[in-house]
């Protein structure tokens, strides 16, 4: 049951993950090799080529943008996909609790987001940590704000999921969780960059917000009507 549900969810979002990986690949290559023609494609300012990885570079800003976009699309895809196809009644009538079914969706979505988004960060980090690749100092602790922001995107993913599962109209109540989650994520990311090294404690706040949103998702999933 676990395997079947996990595979079903993965199969449904693997296209989103693949598209995200391609985009991450492009921005990572562009950041590593400033002579790459991809930089022209991405309109990167010339002076960034001499930047400091994870501090002042052409990678981090774009990574934040595309990671947030991936998180939003994943959350909406997993919820609206079921709505549009009308498969909620089929899924929810399986002999498993609504909490379990939604939990599986969230687990697969979160893992796919975290893994897909961690790969470019790791590749870029390893490149930056390898001596001779760039003329600037590097310590792994310099990557902490980015990792915190990477984990803060789970808030955006959960916010998008909550928006997708919430009954209501687009232009007010329904859009609110997504808008609020983006604000929280931006706040956490700004704080992480302000604190810089030693910002990992912010992950506890992210975890607390994630748990709170998951509780809301389960409550709404159980109490809403699937008409």
């Amino acid at each position, binding site marked *: *049951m676990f*395997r*079947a*549900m996990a595979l*079903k969810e993965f*199969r*449904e979002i693997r296209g989103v993950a693949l598209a995200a990986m391609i985009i991450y690949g492009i921005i990572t290559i562009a950041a590593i090799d400033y002579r790459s023609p991809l930089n022209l494609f991405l309109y990167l300012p010339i002076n960034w080529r001499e930047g400091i990885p994870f501090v002042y570079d052409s990678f981090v800003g774009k990574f934040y943008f595309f990671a947030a976009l991936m998180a939003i699309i994943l959350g909406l895809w997993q919820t609206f996909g079921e709505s549009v*196809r*009308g*498969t*909620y*009644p*089929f899924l*929810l*009538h*399986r*002999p*498993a*609790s609504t909490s379990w079914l939604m939990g599986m969706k969230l687990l697969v979505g979160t893992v796919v987001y975290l893994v897909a988004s961690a790969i470019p960060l790791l590749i870029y980090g390893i490149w930056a940590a390898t001596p001779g690749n760039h003329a600037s100092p590097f310590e792994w602790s310099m990557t902490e704000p980015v990792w915190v922001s990477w984990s803060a995107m789970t808030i955006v993913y959960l916010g998008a999921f909550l928006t997708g599962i919430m009954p209501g109209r687009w232009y007010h109540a329904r859009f609110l969780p997504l808008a609020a989650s983006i604000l929280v994520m931006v706040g956490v990311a700004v704080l992480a960059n302000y604190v810089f090294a030693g910002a990992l404690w912010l992950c506890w706040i992210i975890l607390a917000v994630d748990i709170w949103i998951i509780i809301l998702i389960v409550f709404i999933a159980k*109490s809403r*009507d*699937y*008409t």
Partner: protein
Amino acid sequence: MSDVIVTHGLTKYYGEYCALDGLNLRIPQGTVYGLLGRNGAGKTTAIKMLLGISHPSYGCAEVLGEDAEELRPETRARIAYLAEGHPLYGWMTIGQAVKFTRSFYDRWNQKLLEQILDHFQLSPKRRIRRLSHGQRAQVALALAVATDPEVLILDDPTLGLDTVVRRDFLESLIQIIQRRGRTILFSSHILGDVERVADRIGILVDGVLRVDCPTDHFKESIRKVVLEFEGKPPELPFCPRLVSSRQVGSKLEVVVVGLNGEQRQLFDSLRPRCTEEIEFNLEDAFIEYTIGPRRGLPIFSTEEEVADV
């Protein structure tokens, strides 16, 4: 015989609109119950509330002795549900859909599933999105039945199927029904289907259950009486259990429930030139009954009782 499905004053509001109004229903084990009603009568709403997919504004429902809103997975495994339109994952092949569904059930009749798929000539390799509407219905039925359910709840299972596929689908359903006295609740627009399969029917009119009786009893109870006069027909005085009346030339056509001596006496008092009583099939009876004055319709509850409202 115990009741498998019970509802107590089940009511659903969508904003101000009342989709289902105080549904009281008891479906004993082994019954094939046809839930009828025009579009928007509340059939799907009622079914979704029976499965906990939608939540009542008031009242409650029990299926297999459990509160429908809190069905345990073990209980849910004993209930098969075919949702309206047979939603399945289009990207899956039939084989993948079987594998996915099977993983949730301890009890699974693979042999029966294969028989049904074989009967409908459906290869497990075929992708669901490439199936016709009828074939998708057949796959949904096979998946539902393979769980060896005690209760089958089917929401308009033959909607959109052509006559041949519908007939085949129903034949299969009948065969399934004959296995170990399953309880089946199904909604439908197609009265011929209901007539062939259901022992008992319920008719929802504007969210209110107006009829809940054996199928034959309903058919036999609705009668059209055609009174022919020399000239213009007189006004019909108050008639108990009247469904509708209309003038057609020199004729007065009156549709009543449970035609009896009191009503015949009333009709005779109008001194018609001749009187003809017409029996209906289920479809005609349903149409006559549901196009009548909605809220004032007589309610059928049991074989013996017919009440005026």
